[in-house]
């Protein structure tokens, strides 16, 4: 069953067409990565799916249901997004509780307190953090709140825009573990945008390499690990990401 399907997606900002002919088919429960350097258009694809870049042509559908341009409330319950910057993705004047209650209020779902507590537990946030403001939380805690917020509406698909780029290595490890666990427990489908191929190796099943707004190659993560990707650009990216240090004993 296809969870997320993109057909010939062209996204434009004003006059400039930023992505060209993006076609992807992501199965349910799959973890898929979009990799590329800055300017490759990977974040733009994500934004178009999320409805934040309304000028696109082509087709976007989730579980067979096509998506309209702009704000789509039905789609919101299928698909949510975790943003990159833990410092900028939480409203500075709202407590964790208020931020997590918001999606429930918008979609008129009741039983707030119980749901908030459940999701906070699922992402490993201690209950005592519930009424803190973002500036009273660490980077890792903020990112957990961002993940919790995305899970409040129980979506089946999570869009992740560089979710750990702004975090320390040790905090990144915690968040990556968390994401892996959540995906397993809730059978989520991930579409992850990142420039870090090691994260892809850990978290994903398949990947698409983007360059200049186009998909250059779609490969399995096994190919990435064994260095058997086909396109020379992809191979070069993989080579540059390989560690100099041997694996610790």
């Amino acid at each position, binding site marked *: 069953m296809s969870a997320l399907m993109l057909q010939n997606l062209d996204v434009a900002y004003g006059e400039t067409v930023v992505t060209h002919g993006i076609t992807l088919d992501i199965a349910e429960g799959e973890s898929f990565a979009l990799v590329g350097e800055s300017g490759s258009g990977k974040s733009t694809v994500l934004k178009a799916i999320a409805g934040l870049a309304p000028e696109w042509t082509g087709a976007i559908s989730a579980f067979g249901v096509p998506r309209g341009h702009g704000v789509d*409330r039905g789609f919101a319950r299928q698909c949510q*997004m975790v943003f990159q910057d833990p410092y900028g993705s939480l409203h500075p004047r709202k407590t964790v509780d208020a931020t997590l209650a918001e999606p429930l209020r918008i979609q008129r779902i009741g039983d707030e307190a119980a749901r908030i507590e459940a999701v906070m537990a699922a992402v490993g946030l201690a209950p005592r953090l519930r*009424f803190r403001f973002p500036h009273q939380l660490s980077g890792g805690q903020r990112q957990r709140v961002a993940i919790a917020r995305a899970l409040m509406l129980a979506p089946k698909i999570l869009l992740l825009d560089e979710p750990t780029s702004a975090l320390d290595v040790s905090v990144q490890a915690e968040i990556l573990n968390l994401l892996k666990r959540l995906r397993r427990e809730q059978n989520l489908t991930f579409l992850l945008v990142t420039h870090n191929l090691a994260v892809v190796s850990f978290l994903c099943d398949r990947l698409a390499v983007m360059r200049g707004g186009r998909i250059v190659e779609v490969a399995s993560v096994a190919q990435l690990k064994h260095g058997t990707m086909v396109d020379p650009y992809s191979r070069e990216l993989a080579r540059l990401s390989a560690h100099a240090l041997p694996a610790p004993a």
Partner: protein
Amino acid sequence: MTLDLSRPTLRDWLLADSPASRTQARLGRAYRASLALLRNPLAVLGALIILALLVLALIAPLIATDPIAQDLPNRLQPPSGAHWMGTDELGRDIYARVIYGTRITLEIVVLVAILAAPLGLVIGAVSGYFGGWADRVLMGLTDIFLSMPKLILALAFTAALGPGIEHAIIAIAISSWPGYARIARAETLTIRRAEYVAAVELQGASALRVIWGHILPLLTSSLIIRVTLDMAGIILTAAGLGFIGLGAQPPAPEWGAMISRGRSFILDQWWVATMPGFAIVIVSLGFCFLGDGLRDVLDPRSAERR
């Protein structure tokens, strides 16, 4: 670290690291902001001046005699034990008039703030959020009002409707809101692109919810600062209107009007014009100091660092 094992005080509750309810979190934040404000001596001075203004306005009948009672034999008396600030050209006690004048000043300042600030805020936020033709229309409207000088507008108003303090207030409010609209719009343009706004739009929020619940709360800090700092200017404008006879009408003890009438005696009986002048200066300074202090405390960027 104190080893205090007694039951927790109110201060502990407010400063708690992990509040247990939304109210506690909000009150805690307000408390921390007040603490920061109190650390600034000028801000404290400003706050005390404003507080004094409020208190004097409230208890005016208790501390002063009738401000409009004339006593012609005693006109133009210098400050003395009987009349702390002397008497004016109709024998009225200037001290009493200054005290009662606080009520008029307060009325002007509060009404202008209530009328102009919310209007400017909403227009600016809507304009900034929607962009496009809504932005152009609203900003065009704003520009029209922005280009009208306060005094000329007030003149026009009172020429049309007749003199009086209410018309002066409306005139000042009408020429003040565009400034607030511009500030609100500029900030909205920045906030609109923030990821937390994107996140809530992604959840299906309507424009109303985004503007009311997410954008406006972030605009209030700079608006409070702006309004407080503007109060000085508003007082001076009202005084200016009073000076040219367009504000409060005699015998109301409006400070600007008092200065105007004291003009003719300024050389020999300086107290008639100077006393209300001092009052205006002190109150304006108070608002300026408080506004500056608030800016240091309420600026979201410095709040992030705390």
